[in-house]
């Protein structure tokens, strides 16, 4: 049983820290071995001292009449938190974005990762008492597939041919090509397990750590602890989730005690938070980034000189220091950054600020003026465009920045106008990120940039299980994107949230606010 010894070796290296958790998991995964679930909670060491009790209020930034509990239609952080409280997924992601078993007690793939099988826990009960079976999983997964599915995350399942029920507690996913990232994807917020046949999501049934007490879209929802939850999570008696759209009011709510935790703090109110005791800032570095996309078939994107000039005019340190107040990392026009851990190719040359070369390139490009649309797609996006405009003014180039409202932006402006701001949340793995935004025929490509080399590199990496090769492929891809893609990425921003000091155990998963919503199950209140 070579595999077991191999696992033992890797485990010892893990414990003495020679290899990162991530490397350990990938290597074991590559060996196609189902992992014992006990191992998955090594990093929540602090969980054991968690105290049960108390109820807290969390204020989010967005809410509206479109708040919903339908996993296919979750759009805002508020929705994600409610989904996390009410349902469970097959897979759960640990702080360093490693897929862990949740409802799937164990999972594994065949050699070329074209088939994934999942064993479902047998001791899970829905809130209405009925038992969780494979049928519920199949039904939940199929809702994200098919022509008439209205799921926002449908694209992630485009590669999957079919979900098959193998046994009462076992399901199998059959993909057209190798899909090594499938476990990480199933950790995404949208793939929650609902009861078989549910269509009305006003008062649905879930298996999650909290039961729904009341929900009013656009106002708020109250969730109480699910006493017969299948694992010991859910430390609060009840949690209340509501939205305060105005950032200043949101901060004031925290300071005056009307909310115990708030998400998405604008950088310039950090001073107020840091100067108030009893309040802790939570800054989670992440891979999400803001940038400028130039449509590759339109005048700016198709002109490499213009694109490089734009990259050279970025005041990357200034953006991180002034706009993000230091809570972010300098971007090198590379969608992948250190938060992605091992996949990040850190030795690429930096497109440093060089106004003279930019001026020469602009003259060569033959473009005398340009127009770009800017929307507040992430904190500081508009100000970043204004900074660029000012830099262009300094070298005599007229860049007209048109601010547009965020509502209707993604349908009316994004992917349509020649040059506009864009923003991406961090994805579970680097290859998912690159596949989604930089694959030649990716539906969500910012710029429709077509590079054949990228196509086969992306296919290769999907099937590649050896970490060293994976890293080489990643580096090549990231090099191509940094040099040729008509996208400017000056900075990656951290998630800025805040909580009262009485709350502990907020996880650090960088895929969303407040530890990617994991606080719902793992945070606890010091009485």
């Amino acid at each position, binding site marked *: 049983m070579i595999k077991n010894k191999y696992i033992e070796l890797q485990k010892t290296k893990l414990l003495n820290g020679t290899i990162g958790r991530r490397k350990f998991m990938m290597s074991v995964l590559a060996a196609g071995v189902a992992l014992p679930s006990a191992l998955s909670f090594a990093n929540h060491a602090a969980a054991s001292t968690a105290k049960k009790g108390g109820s807290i209020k969390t204020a989010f930034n967005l809410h509206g009449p479109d708040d919903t509990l339908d996993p296919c239609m979750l759009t805002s952080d508020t929705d994600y938190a409610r989904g996390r409280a009410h349902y469970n997924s097959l897979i759960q992601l640990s702080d360093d974005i490693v897929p862990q078993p949740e409802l799937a007690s164990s999972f594994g793939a065949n050699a070329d990762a074209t088939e994934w099988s999942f064993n479902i826990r047998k001791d899970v009960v829905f809130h209405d008492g009925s038992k969780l079976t494979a049928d519920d999983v199949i039904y939940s997964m199929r809702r994200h597939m098919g022509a008439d599915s209205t799921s926002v995350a449908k694209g992630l399942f485009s590669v999957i041919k079919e979900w098959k029920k193998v046994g009462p507690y076992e399901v199998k996913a059959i993909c057209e090509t190798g899909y090594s990232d499938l476990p990480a994807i199933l950790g995404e917020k949208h793939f929650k397990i609902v009861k078989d046949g549910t269509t009305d999501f006003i008062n649905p049934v879930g298996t999650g750590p909290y039961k729904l007490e009341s929900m009013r879209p*656009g106002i708020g929802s109250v969730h109480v602890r699910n006493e017969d939850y299948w694992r010991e999570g859910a430390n609060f008696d009840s949690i209340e989730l509501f939205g305060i759209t105005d950032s200043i009011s949101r901060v004031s709510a925290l300071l005056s005690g009307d909310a115990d935790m708030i998400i998405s703090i604008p950088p310039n109110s950090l001073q107020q938070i840091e100067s108030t005791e009893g309040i802790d800032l939570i800054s989670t570095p992440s891979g999400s980034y803001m940038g400028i996309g130039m449509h590759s078939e339109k005048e700016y994107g198709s002109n490499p000189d213009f694109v490089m000039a734009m990259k050279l005019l970025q005041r990357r340190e200034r953006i991180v220091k002034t706009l993000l107040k230091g809570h972010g990392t300098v971007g090198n026009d590379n969608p992948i950054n250190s938060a992605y851990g091992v996949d990040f190719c850190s030795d690429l040359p930096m497109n440093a600020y060089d106004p003279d070369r930019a001026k020469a390139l602009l003259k060569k490009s033959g473009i005398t003026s340009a127009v770009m649309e800017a929307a507040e797609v992430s904190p500081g996006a508009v100000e970043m465009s204004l900074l660029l405009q000012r830099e262009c003014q300094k070298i005599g180039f007229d860049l007209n920045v048109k601010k547009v409202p965020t*509502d209707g932006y993604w349908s009316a402006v994004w992917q349509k106008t020649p040059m506009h701001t864009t923003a991406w949340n961090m994805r579970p793995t680097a290859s998912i990120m690159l596949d989604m935004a930089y694959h030649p025929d990716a539906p969500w490509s910012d710029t429709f940039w077509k590079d054949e080399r990228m196509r086969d590199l992306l296919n290769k990496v999907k099937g590649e299980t050896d970490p060293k090769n994976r890293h080489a492929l990643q580096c090549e891809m990231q090099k191509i994107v940094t040099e040729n893609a008509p996208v400017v990425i000056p900075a990656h921003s951290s998630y800025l949230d805040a909580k009262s000091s009485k709350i502990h155990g907020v996880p650090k998963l960088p895929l969303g606010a407040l530890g990617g919503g994991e606080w719902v199950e793992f945070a606890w209140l010091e009485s």
Partner: protein
Amino acid sequence: MWIMAARRILIGIFLIWAVSAFIFLITQILPGDAAELILGQTATDASLEALREKLGLNQAWYTQYLNWIYGLVTGDLGVSVAGGSTIADLIKFRIGNTLFVGGIVAVISIPLSLSLGLTAAMMPGSMIDRVITATTLGLIAVPDFFVAIFLILILAVGLGWFPSVSYLRGNEGFLKSLYVLTLPIFTLVLVVSAQMTRMTRAGILNVMSSPYIEMAILKGIPRRTIILRHALLNSIGPIINVIALNLAYLVSGVVIMETIFAYPGLAKLMVDGVQTRDIPLVQACGMIFCTTFVVLILIADLATIVSNPRLRHPK
């Protein structure tokens, strides 16, 4: 008098219909639609079409208008395109909040501004008059959201006396919700009373130069009676009108207050509706605002007709 009142009511009803046509018209000019908003970044043509079909967004405009009118009349306000819950539920809770705050603000500010306006008119040029005019002027001149933030910072964050955010789950008792809503109520009372006090003072002063007031002075009537009896009775018309306008503001104009205090009122619901292109919701809120305005102005006109003896007892 009754014919005039009846005619005015008929005009009111016609107005409500005209308003519904106006609302339907302007909601058509909103670019994009709910389907695009919901799917957002992940939208593809196929899923857009499916969602539009499901939400009934691609019917001809006149069928949509007729269904909407039919719905309005029968009280079925339709289903929120974005969230799926019925609009009636969405509105029910929020309209309660708006009326709750609006009611309290009105109950406080109307008597307050009438008395302040009267005292200022009674002693023009005196110290009190100057103080009242200066403060009302100051409050009107500054954007209302500045006043709101100012109060939050002092009373909520600074002194911590009141909650800075008026988050209500709806099951709190009267006193508790009153405590939670102190700041928005306090701000609105300031903003609304400033307007009404100035109008009351102006209404009375411009009646003060009429001959029957001079006659009252010459008859040796005490100053207080001249103001309260002779002047006030004749300036009822404009004063009632300004009160009606301010009440309408309390229902539909307070979107900024609701945003700052994160207070679940009707105005903010409509703003969200526009941003998520939730047309049925926007139309429903629009109808409520406009009908309230038309009804309030109707009541103001009827009150002026009744308070004017020339119309009450025709020759």
